């Protein structure tokens, strides 16, 4: 009798716990994904907009945050599309370095123009993932460049275990990765599939 009472006593709460936990499991990456974006944005704003920084310092700080928060290699390879497979080992290595440099320079300089506009993470949605072991969340945020018409920014966050990385950023539904991919493939196509023309443009962008 005592044994049976014990089982009912434990089964009830256990059952309740399973009910409570199982639906939460499906989206347990959503809150950490939102926190991840929020903390990355806060750190970017506080470090990159600090007074009296040279543009070199700002760029190196941005590079650190970019590598930490973004799936840089994955983005770079996606953006090159099918031309990645055709590229030589040397071209791939140079492309990876150039891609990161150009993004770092562009965005670090953009941050220098930031002047305290409000940024607000609102909520996260579950999104289908191409990989079984990974979860994808879309973290929706608003950037109040103009208080009347805020800009909607969606962050695509892939996660596996404790690792969280941003794989794409969409501004008002426009994906940065897709835009960059379209641009790069246009340049390569107009040079008959030769990646060296793109590398030349990226070199100029990095040095200019």
């Amino acid at each position, binding site marked *: 009798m005592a044994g049976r009472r014990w089982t009912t006593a434990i089964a009830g709460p256990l059952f309740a716990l399973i009910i409570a936990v199982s639906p939460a499991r499906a989206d347990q990456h959503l809150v950490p994904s939102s926190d991840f974006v929020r903390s990355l944005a806060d750190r970017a704003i506080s470090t990159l907009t600090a007074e009296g920084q040279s543009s070199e310092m700002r760029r190196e700080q941005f590079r650190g945050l970019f590598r930490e928060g973004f*799936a*840089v*290699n*994955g*983005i770079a*390879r*996606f953006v090159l*599309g*099918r031309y990645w*497979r*055709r*590229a*030589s*080992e040397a071209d*791939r290595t140079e492309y990876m370095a150039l891609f990161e440099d150009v993004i770092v320079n*562009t965005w670090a300089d*953009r941050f220098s*123009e930031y002047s305290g506009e409000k940024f607000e993470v609102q909520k996260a*949605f579950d*999104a289908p*993932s*191409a*990989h079984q*072991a*990974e979860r994808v969340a*879309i973290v929706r945020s608003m950037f109040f460049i*103009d208080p*009347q018409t805020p800009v*909607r920014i*969606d962050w*695509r966050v*892939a*996660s*596996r275990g404790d*690792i969280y*990385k941003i*794989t*794409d950023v969409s501004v*008002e*539904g*426009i*994906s940065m*990765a*897709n*835009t960059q*991919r*379209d*641009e*790069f*493939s*246009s*340049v390569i196509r*107009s040079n008959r599939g030769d990646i060296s023309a*793109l590398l030349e*443009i*990226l070199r100029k*962008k990095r040095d200019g």
Partner: protein
Amino acid sequence: MPLFKRGCGHFFGIVLLAGVLTACATTPNSDPGSPADEVSANDPLELPNRFIFAFNVGLDQLVLQPAAVTYRDLMPDELKVPIRNLITNLFMPLSFLHAMLQGDFDRAEQAASRFFASAPALFLSNPDPGRTPVYEDAGQTFAVWGASAGPYIMLPVLGPSNLRDTAGTIIDFFIDPLGIVAGSEATIGRGISSAVLQRSRNIEQVRDLQRNSVDYYAAVRSLYGQRREAEIKNGDLEPTRAAPTIGLELDAAPAPKQSSDATKQ
């Protein structure tokens, strides 16, 4: 109601024309040789398009951008809000019509209530700041009805478009309630004002895009296509175009060796 009759006559003529145009647009245009992950730009007119684009960029630098800068710098901020509200609210009848045609009654109601609630203040007010304006047009309606975008077209002066949206622009010129009630001068005036307003809010962004893109023409083409998709989906999360398949696996995977890869191709 002679005005209404005139609008209706045009409407049916144009619907016929649009049917022909969008039928052309929906013919499959996929290249069987291209990999599935590559979205083709569908730009068979790229050479003339690039030529017209160069003309449009010149026109923008000479006319639209100076007008936009003048507006931004000289118009008092107190007047900018009512001006923007007026232009926005004058788009609502057309948005209402197209939301109805798309069967989206929520958005139709939203467009109508924004329009009528602002009427007592001569359409200069935004009745409910929490209520965002609704923008619907014939191109979006055709997309909801199942027409695909068709080839990309760079229109002189009017800018980026595609076959479906060009047909939509022509139709909207005739069926716009504002045009039917107040004449085509009103729709043209609204179009020009709206262009200056939009441009005045994007001066830095356009400059940034011109400076930082590796192919400005391709960037604009990509942005146009994606923006239209977002507008058709009304900001829903499900993307019509495959979302980037960037995963951590791809990020962490070592670069495959060229030799082993070459055997696959």
